């Protein structure tokens, strides 16, 4: 069988860069192969896929050495010599930020755009749209404007529009980053179906390794522009040396593999099998753990209930009463929200796509005025405050950091807010230096923000907010598009701001693991209402309620539940550390 992609001795350097982003890459992919490409932020993953879809060298210029050849099964195309419009019929791409690939205003016209440009007959266009719509489950979005979609919905539309081109190679750059857990599962199943049934070659860049590793035929680990490891998932994640390398470069192996790895290291137990699913992991654990029931909850969780009950002793920083918000098109996004947030809280806001999480945050920020009810921040009614006043109290880091970056240098970017407050030059310089230091960006102060990696751009966005010294910080989807290392670094920073400066932190996320690890209080939203609000572990225990919102328990909690089938009675846990605490107790 012919290879669908052949890459030989590929090196690439951007025009403005001093170093090569890709170095001597050799790679082959077969039709119907599902390849998972992993690596830290800024390692060259996106550059690599751009050499396959033709964006490099046709759009992004630089020095390209070596060859990339793609095949549709009948013909072979040398990427550097083939026009991008021809390549588009062979290689479909779904980018990290779906907005960058929308051309039209409505979902339906967006889906029709690609096939129309291939001059296909209307019947064929309709057939392709029907197929793509069904595959991605977006029937209800067809008549909507692309601007009215939530982040997750946009991503589904982007995948569907790539599918309408019926490509033989599909490249997906973190397609599930904006999706809720159930949405992500559905999309991965669709991608897997495309591979198995339509024999499409898929290259997937993804940080959610737990879910995707069971589908992948091959995992490629990339670092500093090179492929440093390659093989089937069980081989890559089962090799202790590769796992150590993964940790070194800031990649966390799938959680269930990591936990077994840590137990085997600590207890000197030999574990030969490499699990790719939670069920497999529970089976292996049941085989190595002495059968024992533990009733004590981990200490942190015991304290959470008391913490939640005593919150009202603190100063109230956000007061929301009977808040309703209706978009101009009549969509009722918030339906009677009553909520108090107290000083120094670390709150996680979770919920499926379109549940009203982001709208709630934008209302808190004063960008959206309530249609009914009120929002008070630090005792002041938000609708009576100017945006300049609000920016001193609340800061928000958006899902897409690029929306916040528009200055020529990192220094100017961070100084922009304080300058607009009319602060003296010495005060501005002091605040900028402090923010640069906190975000470890000193060495990039003269760089152009947009030339930095996504993780670094995220840090610049946070620094630009920190320089305003807000009392409340809202982080919308902080884990999107970040490797585990950057993600942990970012969340640790939020934790530090919360603990050391008593800053109130609100994190909106789909990552149940991240929220479980950092948030003490969780608010679950569904259809513009608060479904539940309480201490994190109590909310996570209620599986029925989580299922109602297309969310799922963190993997570690699921493993504990799975272990019950093998006769283990264990208390709920939210983090790997808490699980290891329980394992220690079992071995004691």
């Amino acid at each position, binding site marked *: 069988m012919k290879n669908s992609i052949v890459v030989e001795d590929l090196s690439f350097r951007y025009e403005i860069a001093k170093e090569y982003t890709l170095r001597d890459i050799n790679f082959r992919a077969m039709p119907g192969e599902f390849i998972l490409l992993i690596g830290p932020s800024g390692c060259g993953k996106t550059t690599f896929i751009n050499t396959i879809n033709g964006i490099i060298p046709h759009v992004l210029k630089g020095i390209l050495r070596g060859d990339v050849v793609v095949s549709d099964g009948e013909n072979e195309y040398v990427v550097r010599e083939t026009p991008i419009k021809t390549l588009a019929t062979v290689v479909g791409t779904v980018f990290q930020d779906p907005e960058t690939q929308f051309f039209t205003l409505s979902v339906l016209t967006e889906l029709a755009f690609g096939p129309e440009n291939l001059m296909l007959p209307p019947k064929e266009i309709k057939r392709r749209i029907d197929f793509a719509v069904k595959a991605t489950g977006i029937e209800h979005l067809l008549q909507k404007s692309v601007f009215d979609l939530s982040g997750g919905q946009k991503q589904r539309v982007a995948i569907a529009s790539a599918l309408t081109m019926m490509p033989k190679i599909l490249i997906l750059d973190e397609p599930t980053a904006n999706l809720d857990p159930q949405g992500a599962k559905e999309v991965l199943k669709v991608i897997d179906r495309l591979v198995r049934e339509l024999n499409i070659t898929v290259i997937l860049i993804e940080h959610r390794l737990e879910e995707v590793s069971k589908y992948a035929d091959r995992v490629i680990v990339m670092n500093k522009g090179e492929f440093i490891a390659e093989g089937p998932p069980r081989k890559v994640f089962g090799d202790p040396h590769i796992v150590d390398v993964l940790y070194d470069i800031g990649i966390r192996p799938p959680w269930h593999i990591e936990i077994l790895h840590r137990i085997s290291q600590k207890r000197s137990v030999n574990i030969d099998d490499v699990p790719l699913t939670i069920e497999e992991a529970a089976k292996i654990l049941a085989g190595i753990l002495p059968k024992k029931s533990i009733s004590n909850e981990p200490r942190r969780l015991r304290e959470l209930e008391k913490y*939640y*009950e005593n*919150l*009202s002793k603190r100063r109230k920083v956000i007061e929301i*009463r*009977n808040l*309703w918000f*209706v978009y101009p098109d*009549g969509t*009722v996004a918030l*339906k*009677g*929200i*009553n*909520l*108090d*947030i*107290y000083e120094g809280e670390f709150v996680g806001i979770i919920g499926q796509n379109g549940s009203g999480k982001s709208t709630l945050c934008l209302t808190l920020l004063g960008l959206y005025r309530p*249609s*009914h*009810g009120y929002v008070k921040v630090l005792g002041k009614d938000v609708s009576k405050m*100017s945006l300049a006043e609000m920016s001193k109290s609340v800061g928000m880091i958006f899902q897409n950091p690029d929306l916040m970056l528009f200055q020529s240098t990192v220094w100017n970017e961070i100084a922009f807010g304080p300058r607009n407050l009319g602060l003296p030059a010495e005060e501005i310089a002091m605040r900028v230096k402090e923010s640069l230091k906190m975000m470890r960006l000193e060495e990039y102060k003269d760089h152009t923000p947009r030339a930095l990696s996504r993780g670094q751009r995220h840090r610049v966005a946070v620094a630009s907010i920190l320089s305003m010294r807000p009392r409340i910080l809202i982080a919308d989807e902080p884990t999107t598009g970040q490797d585990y290392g950057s993600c942990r670094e970012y969340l640790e920073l939020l934790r530090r701001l919360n603990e050391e400066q008593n800053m109130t932190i609100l994190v909106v996320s789909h990552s149940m693991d991240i929220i479980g690890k950092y948030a003490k*209080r969780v*608010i*679950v939203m569904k*259809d513009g*209402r*608060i*479904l*539940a*609000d*309480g*201490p994190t572990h*109590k*909310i996570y225990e*209620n599986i*029925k*309620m989580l299922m109602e919102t297309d969310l799922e328990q963190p993997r570690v909690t699921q493993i504990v539940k799975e272990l019950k089938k093998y006769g283990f009675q264990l208390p709920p846990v939210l983090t790997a550390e808490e699980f290891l605490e329980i394992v220690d107790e079992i071995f004691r």
Partner: protein
Amino acid sequence: MGAGTEYIKSLFIGFVFTPVFFVVINAIGYEFQVFLLFKGMPITIHQVAMWLLLMPEESRGMVGLVGTTLAWIMGWLLAWSRSRNTNMTILAIITSYFLYIIYLVSFWRIPIIIYLPEGLVPIISSIIAVYLFALINKYRPKKTIFDLLKRVGIIFPEAWKKPYNLPLKCPKCGAVLHSSPKYCWNCYSDIEEILGGGKS
């Protein structure tokens, strides 16, 4: 929006639109030959300002007085409707009166004579009109977002429209709640159902 901004907004709208309304009233009157403020003659900006201050003799006749007062009232009601700040609008009315005088004196060197009591009729009428509209607006039943949604067939349970005094206590287990959620975090009971809420 602060009071200062609302004042500037009122002043700008009232100062600009009162002369505009005056000219429009004049034009309509001319069209139907019923309300001839200038006997069908072309009019300049400073003449409009003079008419607004009721300085020409013919402006103080019944037709002139009614037409000018109507222009003042319309201009300032428009200004109030945009700023919704009654006190600032009244302050803007007084300011604009002096601005017309300053304009005539400084640009056209026209000696100002205010004929009393007619000269104050437009300004006092506009102040009374703004007050009356503010009062009517205060006491008339307001359309809420729920009325608008009801009109398009979207109805929500009454329990959802109530503001709650927080923290609440779960009616079943007594757990503290810092919001008004559907489910209690402690006993997982459906609080909405217990409190007689319901579904959308």
